[in-house]
């Protein structure tokens, strides 16, 4: 055993190959840039969808709102400033290749340091308080980040950054449905949640729905659903159909852009599923405003 341990200690893979190494300094710089870029440039699929709905919106006021939203993301890019002042909780999805070795320090510290530098050097707002209930004092550097790790095959490090604003996050919801509630139960819950949220989450919104798992899995996959490019349906035909139907129904609620009334309440409904317990049908809804920021890098 000691011999085997030693051979692992010098970073030999099976067959005697050296493990790929990455220094934390590289990760820190990459995360810093990721924080700034994601907050300034809206993803192309979101831009395309906003422009598409600008053409079809029935309400004249709603149309004007969408026009201003388009103008806003253009100004942000031109002036190199954040699209929205709520530059969010720094949420990361990290896929760590099991054959990659991090050197110079630990990965979570490196991500937090990248956030610290990005939010300072990018003039982004620091929106995190240290203690949720009692002190609520701003941490001053937008840390801690929230990091979801996944260990995957290979020797790469994939980092997705998705800053999340408070206004839309506050309108999110979780309900433990009964299996008998089925598809109708899910639809009812989504429509009720969006209707109740009204103008609060800055419509037009993107709706992430997580169905199945345990409560933490349902909420996590609801958030992951927000990262899927708009226009890419769920691979399971029944779920893809449900996404389409829900989007259609949500846009009949009348809330419209910014809640002033109209036909564009949501740009997309994305559903992710996970196997469930025989007793359970957990459903989580994560609401995302039109400033649907996320950016991915691979190191």
């Amino acid at each position: 055993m000691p011999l085997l341990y030693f051979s692992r200690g010098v970073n030999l893979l099976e067959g005697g190959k050296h493990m790929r190494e990455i220094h934390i300094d590289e990760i820190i710089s990459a995360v810093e840039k990721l924080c700034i870029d994601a907050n300034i440039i809206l993803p192309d699929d979101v831009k395309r969808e906003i422009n598409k709905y600008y053409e079809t919106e029935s309400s004249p006021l709603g149309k004007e709102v969408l026009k201003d939203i388009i103008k806003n993301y253009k100004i942000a890019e031109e002036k190199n400033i954040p699209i929205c002042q709520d530059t969010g909780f720094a949420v990361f999805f990290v896929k760590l290749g099991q054959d990659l070795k991090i050197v110079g320090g630990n990965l979570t510290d490196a991500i937090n340091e990248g956030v610290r530098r990005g939010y300072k050097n990018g003039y982004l707002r620091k929106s995190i308080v240290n203690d949720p209930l009692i002190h609520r004092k701003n941490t001053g550097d937008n840390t801690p980040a929230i990091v979801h790790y996944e260990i995957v095959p290979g020797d790469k490090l994939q980092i997705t950054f998705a800053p999340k604003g408070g206004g839309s996050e506050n309108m999110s919801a979780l309900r433990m449905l009964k299996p008998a509630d089925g598809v109708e139960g899910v639809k009812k819950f989504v429509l009720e949640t969006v209707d109740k949220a009204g103008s609060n989450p800055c419509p037009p919104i993107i709706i992430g729905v997580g169905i199945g798992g345990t409560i933490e899995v349902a909420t996590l996959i609801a958030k992951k659903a927000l990262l899927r490019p708009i226009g890419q349906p769920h691979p399971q035909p029944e779920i893809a159909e449900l996404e389409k139907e829900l989007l259609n129904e949500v846009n009949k609620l009348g809330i419209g852009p910014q809640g002033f009334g109209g036909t564009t309440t949501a740009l997309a409904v994305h559903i992710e599923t996970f196997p469930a317990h025989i007793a359970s049908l957990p459903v989580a809804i994560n609401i995302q405003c039109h400033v649907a920021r996320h950016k991915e890098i691979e190191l």
Partner: protein
Amino acid sequence: MIKSIKTPLTPEIIDDLKAGDKVLITGIIYSARDAAHKRLYEMIQKGEELPVDLKGQIIYYAGPCPAKPGTVIGSAGPTTSGRMDPYTPLLIEKGLKGMIGKGLRSKEVVDAIITHKAVYFAAIGGAGALLADTIKKAEVVAFPELGPEAIYEFHVEDFPAIVVIDKDGNDLYKIGKENYRKI
């Protein structure tokens, strides 16, 4: 039609504003969000003098991004107004006449708006870069230790907003939704 209005708000200006009107606001507005509201509320309750005189003024529910060197302010769009609902009726009672934010208000706030003839505006949530363009001067006037939640005095020129709840309690969010609802 777009109405150009100047702060502070007089009864005549407020009388003329109806839910759904588009306005361009020029003059001084004060930013205040969660933490600043809590402090203002507690100061009123203790009978202390407020750091800003709210009579006839507008509060903008906003916490801006820091200003890049050579600029007035960073992105500065509205935050969700509903979180200020527990504090707002008292501020209106003390003379506050206008609020700019986004999202729904409680019945207590709507009642206070009607009783004291105030007005609630919405700015476009998520349009912080566009709105920052209308802020010509920005200065922290209270609670600097709150960082982005400090009270700023903003000098705005043609700040675009929509009247959501007018002095009679008409609510654009309700009217607009009913007009386009198909289920």
